[in-house]
């Protein structure tokens, strides 16, 4: 059985899609990714689609699902490296890819995920500060 490998790198999960996915493979990837997010406590998922020549409404829905499901599990999803022709086609098809962060390449995608983690940590720190202030009063 073919499988799309999922690599773990620190707080993130990396997926590079190198083949044109048929439906079952895409659905398996969705399930595998979500269970990996839960298993590894990942904070971000980076999906590289630079070798994908076709994203139709089914594949678009899978990407959207992965982002929504990961978000529920407290992880952000970034899709990187989309080919220009694929982006144009997606928009004409009417597929907005809502809730999915995108970046031009893997490097920028990683930056985006890192900045999100940093923001979250800052938020948490602020919360602790407030707690401290409350107890003093």
């Amino acid at each position: 059985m073919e499988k799309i490998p999922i690599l773990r790198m620190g707080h993130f999960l990396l997926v590079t899609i190198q083949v044109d996915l048929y439906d079952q493979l895409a659905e398996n990837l969705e399930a595998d990714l979500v269970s990996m997010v839960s298993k590894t406590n990942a904070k971000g998922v980076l999906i590289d689609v630079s070798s994908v020549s076709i994203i139709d409404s089914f594949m678009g829905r899978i990407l959207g699902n992965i982002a929504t499901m990961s978000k529920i599990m407290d992880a952000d999803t970034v899709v990187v490296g989309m080919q220009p022709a694929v982006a144009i086609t997606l928009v004409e098809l009417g597929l907005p890819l809502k809730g999915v962060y995108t970046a031009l390449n893997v490097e920028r995608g990683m930056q985006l995920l890192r900045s999100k983690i940093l923001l979250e940590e800052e938020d948490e720190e602020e919360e602790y500060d407030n707690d401290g202030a409350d107890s003093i009063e």
Partner: protein
Amino acid sequence: MTTTAPIVLNRDSITVSRETDVVPFRSRVKEHAVKIGMSLLNQTKLITGASELVRNMLKYGNGGIVKIEVLSRGRDSGIRLIFEDKGPGIPDINKAMTDGFTTGKSMGLGLPGTKRLMNEFNIQSEVGVGTTVTVIKWKNG
């Protein structure tokens, strides 16, 4: 531009009965599109549209046959795809062509979205007999 009927230069057909037939079908369409020198953008639009239609055919029509024709019209050339299934047919084509309408659990973009990606789009359906969708993408369209 002359409005003469296009000439069919080459005919091919492929049976699609299972989900795993979709990827080979897409590669076949791509081969023909590359052979006539279609731009990458038009190739992508053609194959994405073809993928939507073939998925509809599998989901609602229990599979069928796709005819791939290489067309020539004046100086332009193109690809015509004819999707034929013997499924239950579509009772209300106008409704099926509306953005967001679906009887399944998809997003209902398949038919209207594909129409936007193609240069010519024709759908004929008879309840109980089947559905035929014909699309053309011109090389320079």
